[in-house]
């Protein structure tokens, strides 16, 4: 195995998807190549950093009140209001648009 072959196999190695033969070859190359060992280590560190740092806010802040009202209005629980534009939208129009958006989300989520 060369370094060019080692690098594409990293993901499968980390996810345990290498078969026994490829895993042995991978580990043999790793043991003898300091360059690939350093690359793998920094790759692993990148993954760990993105998992921890990329997540950012844990969402412990409450959802803004105007957004709660807007969501409840969009579900038909109360009169619709366009809180983002600052304009009041006709409730039948708002409900129609919300229905279309919801249908699209559901179609892509469950229909594929």
């Amino acid at each position: 195995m060369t370094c060019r072959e080692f690098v594409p196999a990293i993901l499968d190695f980390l996810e345990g998807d290498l078969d026994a033969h490829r895993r042995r070859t991978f580990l043999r190359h790793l043991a003898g190549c300091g360059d690939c060992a350093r690359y793998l280590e920094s790759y692993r560190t990148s993954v760990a950093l993105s998992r921890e740092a990329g997540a950012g806010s844990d969402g412990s802040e409450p959802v803004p009140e105007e957004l709660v009202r807007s969501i409840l209005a969009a579900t038909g629980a109360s009169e619709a209001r366009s809180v983002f534009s600052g304009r009041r939208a006709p409730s039948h129009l708002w409900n129609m648009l919300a229905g279309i958006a919801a249908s699209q989300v559901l179609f892509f989520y469950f229909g594929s």
Partner: protein
Amino acid sequence: MLAMVAPTPSTALDPGSDESLLLAALRRGDEGAFERLVREHGGRLLAVSRRFLRNEEDARDALQDAFVSAFRSVDRFEGSSRLSTWLHRIVVNSCLMKLRSRRRHPEEPIEDLLPKFLEDGHAAVPSVAWRRSAEELLEIAETRTLVRAAIDRLPESYRTVLMMRDIEELDTAEAARLLDVSENAVKVRLHRARQALRELLDPALRGGAS
């Protein structure tokens, strides 16, 4: 169809649990229950939406669309996963819809951020060990800013897969289904995204840099 959200026995709802009672109230059309759902989960899910979309208005729109979808499909939720897991998947899907709708320009190629190799198979640029471990780096306040900025520099389709797999912790099959691509395509994209992220972080984290 909701059963397609990968259930695991350990996360199934217990009959009589608070969440099961909430689900029963939602199915009855109890408006108070829906409001409770929005208030209990909305903050965390808005954070998810903000991470994906990086635009407050889009993030709020996507969250609203997701809750409308949830509201309309709660009858089909079988309780085989936690409500929070189910809602999370719907929000991620809503964000993907929003990303698709606003994608207007061809994205930057990622090849410049991938390692190059010589004809003999060795790396064209030798790797240099990083100065600190992930644990040590995460204790430094600037690291989070550095990493988030690097993630934001990834081409959108790669950033999206990295977000789904490494940050939102969806498995490959779920990510593939939501993106409507093969599992292999997700793995290829994820590996490239991680390599590109490593490359972007390398100048700041490699040994010898201050």
